[in-house]
């Protein structure tokens, strides 16, 4: 696979073209805003929790194909999952993008999120994929401050 098709896999292009769960969620149990000062992109993550379970999750904002697909696929993957599973998936996702020793064992599988493995070859684009996950973390804590990639 070339670096180009490795990065812009069909799955990522599809989610960029028709993002899932891109809407406002009100009222929300958790809400946070993320900002990438390098490109000026902004994303808002909304969470609705049923105890420890993510009952609904949505996002708003527009960015590059990588960040839009990351937000779309993250929300799709996390609906119905527990908060601890979400955190574990974030850790695995982060390692997929940055850690050359693989993503490790145990816990929930990344599944389709492995489509983002190609981003590892583009260090300048890793933050595009992780911004929405960092914002999710803040939404879980319902933090007021804006999450920044810097």
């Amino acid at each position: 696979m070339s670096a180009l098709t490795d990065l812009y896999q069909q799955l990522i292009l599809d989610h960029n073209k028709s993002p899932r769960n891109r809407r406002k969620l009100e009222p929300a149990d958790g809400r946070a805003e993320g900002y990438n000062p390098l490109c000026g992109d902004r994303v808002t993550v909304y969470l609705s929790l049923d105890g420890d379970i993510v009952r609904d999750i949505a996002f708003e904002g527009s960015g590059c194909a990588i960040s839009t697909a990351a937000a779309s696929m993250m929300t799709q993957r996390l609906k119905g999952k527990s908060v601890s599973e979400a955190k574990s998936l974030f850790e695995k996702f982060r390692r997929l993008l940055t850690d050359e020793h693989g993503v490790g064992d145990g816990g929930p599988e990344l599944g389709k999120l492995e489509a983002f493995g190609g981003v590892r070859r583009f260090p300048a684009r890793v933050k595009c994929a992780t911004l929405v996950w960092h914002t999710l973390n803040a939404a879980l804590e319902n933090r007021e401050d804006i999450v920044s990639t810097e």
Partner: protein
Amino acid sequence: MRTTAIPAQPGSAQHRPDSFDVERVRRDFPILQRTINGKPLVYLDNAATGQKPQAVIDTISRYYAAENANIHRGVHRLSVDATAAYEGARAKVQRFMGAARPEEIIFVRSATEAINLVAQAYARPTLKPGDEVLISTMEHHSNIVPWQIVCEQTGSVLRVVPINDAGEYMFEEYEQLLSSRTRLVAVTHVSNALGTINPVRRIIEVAHQRDIPVLVDGAQAAPHLAIDVKELDCDFYAISGHKMFGPSGIGALYGKYELLDDMPPYQGGGEMILSVSFEGTVYNHVPHKFEAGTPNIAGAIGLGATVDYLQQIGLDNIATYEHELLVYATEALSAVPDVRLIGTARAKAAVLSFLVGDIHPHDVGTILDLEGIAVRTGHHCAQPVMQRFGITATARASLALYNTTAEIDALVAGVGKVRKVFG
């Protein structure tokens, strides 16, 4: 001052001045031999920083290998020679900018530092609550934030001249915004995000009719246009070494002698004093008063070599050639479906900010990078410009004297590939 308008005759790229041979120029820049992702480097990010000619690299290398010493300090031979080279570089920059005397050139780290120096050492002691500083929408953050800081410190107000849909400075609005409280006008000579060449001569003339001094941010002008501060009659003019193919970490501030002489120091330390005691310190004269501490000696000498290089080729030759490139690139990019140019001023430097449909500029930039093409993507440190056009980012190809029409063709093919991936 040469300002050029876009609608020149098509096909003029075939009629280059005999004095300008782009292939010869390219051989002066060793980095242009590099490949990126297996493709020849097509470097179109010159508004971010320029590449360095061998003559500049050699000058810096020679300085460190054979001539290094501190300046204005020793009686030994190396120090005397280093001092002469450093002050010689000041004289070269003086001639390059058309300043009346070498003392009017202050070496700084960057154009950013030059503007901060004027904000803190000229504006801050002058400004009173309610006074106004007038900038424009198209300024780089470095010509916005220093003024915001000094306005906050003094209770003054920052006013902003708008730009029109083409990205041009709105002159009538400027004249209306000048008030009895305006104490300083700051404006960029060439916009880094849009390429607009501003009518700085007229801006200065109108301000001077009201005795208002003008600072010109020339970071984007110096690599592309002949600068003559005497002819412009500007009060301050800032340039950046690395953007004009010189070293990073060096820039210069031109200031009129009487203004500089009246200003308090910007920073305290060695070099900027005549005598120090705990009862009181006597400051050194201009320009040393503003050059506290050991300066970037190699950078200044490298900048001297840079202006030698540019003058040897001739800024007018560079401006003519780059204008031809701009005309060619504007036509070629405009012909690509879905491409929208941001910044279509009549007087424009060779900067092409563009959008490809609704494809995010970062995706455009990454795909172009895989083709070996370096463009800048993002807000270009000019977020108010992005806000003016209702966008968050653009892709920007910014050209320089060593770029070719073949490289423009590569860019256009790359944009075609972008459209295919996201088609």
